[in-house]
């Protein structure tokens, strides 16, 4: 069909084809595979738009922090009916307590002062050492001043109350994580 003139050549279904404008549309409507492609693309596009809208809506809401259970007091402790009634203390007892508190305060103050003094001496010694190093060699001084990349992450377990028992055989078991998962 090299020279196909729409007006001249009558095609098979021409008796129910009145206008030329509907020609293209009718041909496409009859070819089934082409119809699916168009509608699919539209549907997919609509789906994608809907998803994008949903994502935008969810993203608009600011992210929330997980509530810390430590700071929420359980309701059973807010009950005011339980009141502790302590016996009255004797004069000697109160005096003893007050004097003990004073001694403890003095002890802690001395401890704190000693700590601060120790820090100051450490810093002073460090500064003096760096000064001497600078006099020795500039290169080493610069290298010493630079920050240590291998220092962090730094991990340390706290001291234990007693050393580990020799030959202790722990029972078999497992740990199950039952932390409450919060979702937004």
């Amino acid at each position, binding site marked *: 069909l090299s020279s196909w003139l729409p007006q001249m050549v009558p095609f098979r279904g021409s008796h129910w084809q009145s206008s030329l404008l509907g020609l293209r549309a009718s041909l496409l409507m009859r070819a089934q595979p082409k119809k699916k492609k168009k509608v699919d693309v539209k549907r997919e596009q609509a789906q994608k738009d809907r998803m994008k809208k949903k994502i935008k809506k969810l993203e608009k809401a600011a*992210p929330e922090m997980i509530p*810390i*259970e*430590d700071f929420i007091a359980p309701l059973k402790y807010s009950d005011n009916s339980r009141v502790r009634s302590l016996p009255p203390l004797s004069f000697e007892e109160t005096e003893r307590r007050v004097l003990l508190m004073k001694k403890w305060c003095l002890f802690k103050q001395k401890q704190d002062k000693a700590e601060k003094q120790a820090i100051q001496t450490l810093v002073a010694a460090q500064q003096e050492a760096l000064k001497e190093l600078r006099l020795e060699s500039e290169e080493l001084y610069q290298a010493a001043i630079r920050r240590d990349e291998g220092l*962090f992450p730094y991990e340390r*377990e*706290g001291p234990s109350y007693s050393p580990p028992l020799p030959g202790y055989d722990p029972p078999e078991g497992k740990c199950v994580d039952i932390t409450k998962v919060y*979702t937004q």
Partner: protein
Amino acid sequence: MLCLMKGMLLKQVFALSRAATPRESHLCAAGGALVSCHRHYRSRPTHGIGRFKYLLPKEAPKKKKDKVQMKEIDVGTEHEYGDLNIQMTSYDMCLVEHFAQYVHRLCNQLSVRVKESYAMPTKTNEVLFLEERGSKMQLDAVLTTHQRVVQISGLSSTFAPILLEVIQSNQPEGVHLLVKEHTEADFKSRLKSRPELEELLAQMS
């Protein structure tokens, strides 16, 4: 207020009617509503009477709910460390709280800038152990792990080992210390998870 106004009006009307002639009286009565207003003119000594807001202390502007945004992570220079997280973990909450307070105060005293001091969500663990003669798992205890974080920034490279030494020497038993650099992942772990959003994002890509 209305009855006051009315009373004022009536008084005004009577005053005007007494002063003016009967021909003008209805005119004054008509303009009575305009004449009897409560404005104190700037030239009058009563100007500014009733003002009191300027005497009250300035109240902070009403803050809207601040969006939880991540603060900028400082990387640090050659001689200074950036944002560091001092994380203290323990099963004992009071101990870890007191230690965190101590570390915070220490940093304040040593003029190390403390950016943030917060608590991480509590983790709960159920410890089960296998009975000696039996195959059933027995519940031993329910342990809660508490973690507190003190975030510092601008720590100089020469002072860092001294600070670590002091913190270590005061570390109580049972408290696990971890000092590491602050990352975005650390911040994200504090936020609630959004499974729907993640699902949709996974579907999209």
